């Protein structure tokens, strides 16, 4: 079995090392354009108005563009403005700003006098659609497991439902319950939703073709909103003791009286925590995608240097990008886990009741069954 697999892999690699460079050089010749790795990388990492299909650079799945510009709301499919086309809606026209123009890559409105106006853009872009798909997957997940529970009560689920349930139990019992204790019922829905949404977005992002391939969790807007939700959950449900610790912490008086040094640091800390959450998830996922794309692009960059070099680069790149993708599968899970864990931790800071002597008691009570 393993022998067969290795030989298959070898054949694949050899054929790729011949075919891909040929395709690459041919492609370059036919397009007759300078290869710009930076543009390709940013195109793949960023958002888009259409969703690309495999093996074709021109056909894209059209997605709705929704704009609030001059003259009210404008709705049209992204295929109308694709590839530099201009869409005319009455007296207004729209196009995607070309490279070098202001608002590059976004849909802009061309006014009758020729000036360019950036409308209020809430289009269903590739990332938004990917987000919706992931959200539906999360809903399906939860529905599947809760349906099982309603039908079978305490019977252990099998197959896919069993796997999902194991994940839920892993997060709930391993992260939420030990950190939040009695309050876990209140925050568990939020934290579990965050975990599954991030996990699905991460894993969908690793799939190359539709409905995957969108770099959603590697987009700062998405991680920012998730972090804002954690921030709100922490501070809206924060206890009196939590606010006292921030505004009047338990430190020597000179640190907080004439000049509120500690309170300022603490207030700063309120905002750095969600910022750290935002950047951690964003940077990790962006980095993972970027490495895979760069490794793949190496083939095309070296395509100019002759078949031998290109062949060697292809083997190297493909093996490394497979390796990186496998690592990214792991990273997808770890980052979802870390985001959930840190959110749980931050929320638990907001839930401190100030009765410190209660905590060891609870801990010992919780530890007792484990030692039994």
């Amino acid at each position: 079995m393993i022998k067969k697999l290795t030989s298959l892999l070898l054949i694949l690699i050899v054929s790729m090392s011949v075919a891909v460079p040929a395709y690459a050089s041919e492609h370059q010749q036919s397009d007759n354009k300078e290869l710009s790795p930076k543009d390709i990388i940013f195109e793949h990492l960023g958002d888009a108005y259409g969703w690309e299909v495999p093996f074709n650079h021109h056909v894209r799945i059209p997605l709705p563009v929704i704009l609030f510009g001059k003259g009210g709301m404008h709705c049209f499919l992204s295929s109308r403005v694709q590839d530099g086309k201009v869409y005319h809606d009455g007296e207004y026209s729209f196009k995607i700003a070309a490279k070098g123009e202001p608002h590059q890559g976004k849909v802009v409105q061309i006014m009758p006098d020729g000036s360019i106006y950036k409308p209020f853009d809430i289009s269903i872009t590739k990332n938004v659609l990917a987000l919706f798909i992931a959200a539906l997957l999360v809903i399906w997940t939860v529905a599947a497991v809760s349906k099982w529970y309603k039908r079978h009560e305490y019977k252990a689920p099998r197959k896919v439902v069993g796997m999902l349930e194991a994940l839920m139990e892993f997060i709930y019992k391993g992260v939420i319950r030990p950190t939040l204790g009695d309050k876990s019922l209140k925050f568990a829905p939020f934290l579990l939703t965050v975990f599954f949404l991030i996990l699905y977005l991460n894993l969908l992002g690793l799939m190359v073709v539709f409905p995957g391939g969108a770099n959603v969790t590697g987009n700062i807007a998405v991680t920012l909103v998730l972090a804002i939700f954690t921030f709100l959950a922490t501070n809206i449900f924060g206890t009196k003791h939590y606010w006292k610790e921030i505004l009047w912490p338990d430190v020597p008086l000179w640190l907080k009286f004439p000049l509120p040094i500690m309170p300022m640091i603490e207030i700063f800390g309120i905002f750095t925590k969600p910022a750290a959450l935002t950047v951690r998830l964003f940077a990790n996922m962006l980095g993972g995608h970027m490495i895979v794309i760069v490794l793949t692009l190496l083939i095309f960059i070296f395509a100019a240097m002759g078949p031998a070099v290109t062949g060697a680069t292809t083997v190297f790149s493909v093996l490394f990008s497979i390796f990186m993708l496998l690592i990214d599968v792991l990273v997808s899970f770890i980052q979802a886990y870390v985001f959930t864990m840190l959110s749980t931790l931050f929320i638990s800071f907001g839930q401190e009741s100030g009765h410190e002597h209660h905590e060891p008691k609870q801990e010992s009570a919780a530890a007792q069954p484990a030692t039994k």
Partner: protein
Amino acid sequence: MELFTPDFGLVFWMFVAFAVLLFVLYKWGWPVIVKTIDSRADLIDKGVEYAQNAKEQLDKAREQSEAYLAEARNQQADMLREAERIKTKIIDDARSAAQVEARKVMDAAKQSIEQERKEAQQQFRNEVSNFALDIASKVVRNQLQNPESQSKLVNSLLDEMETNN
């Protein structure tokens, strides 16, 4: 850098999508699952506790049954011993009673035998004496047919009487 500036449209949709997702799941999704996980954990804990209790009780019951068994065995031994004792006593009693009875019977038998013997002796003696007297009378009659012998007898008798006196 466009990568580091959040796009408003995406922020908006992310906010809406996440809020809707959270609302839906908060209302109809997670509570069922979380509660089931919790209650199942409780159930398992309770099950373990129950099993432990049951095991303890079983151990206790086993100990108790062993104690009962030992007691029963003791009682059985006691009863057997008692029965043995009663048996020997009964046998002894019976034996002594029988001996007494036997002795009585023997005594009675002896007595009656003695009686019989005496009576028989008496009878025998009477008969013998009768025989003797008959014989004697016959003998005497034979001897005393001639006067000489009669006088001789008288003389001898007289001699005897003299010597006896």
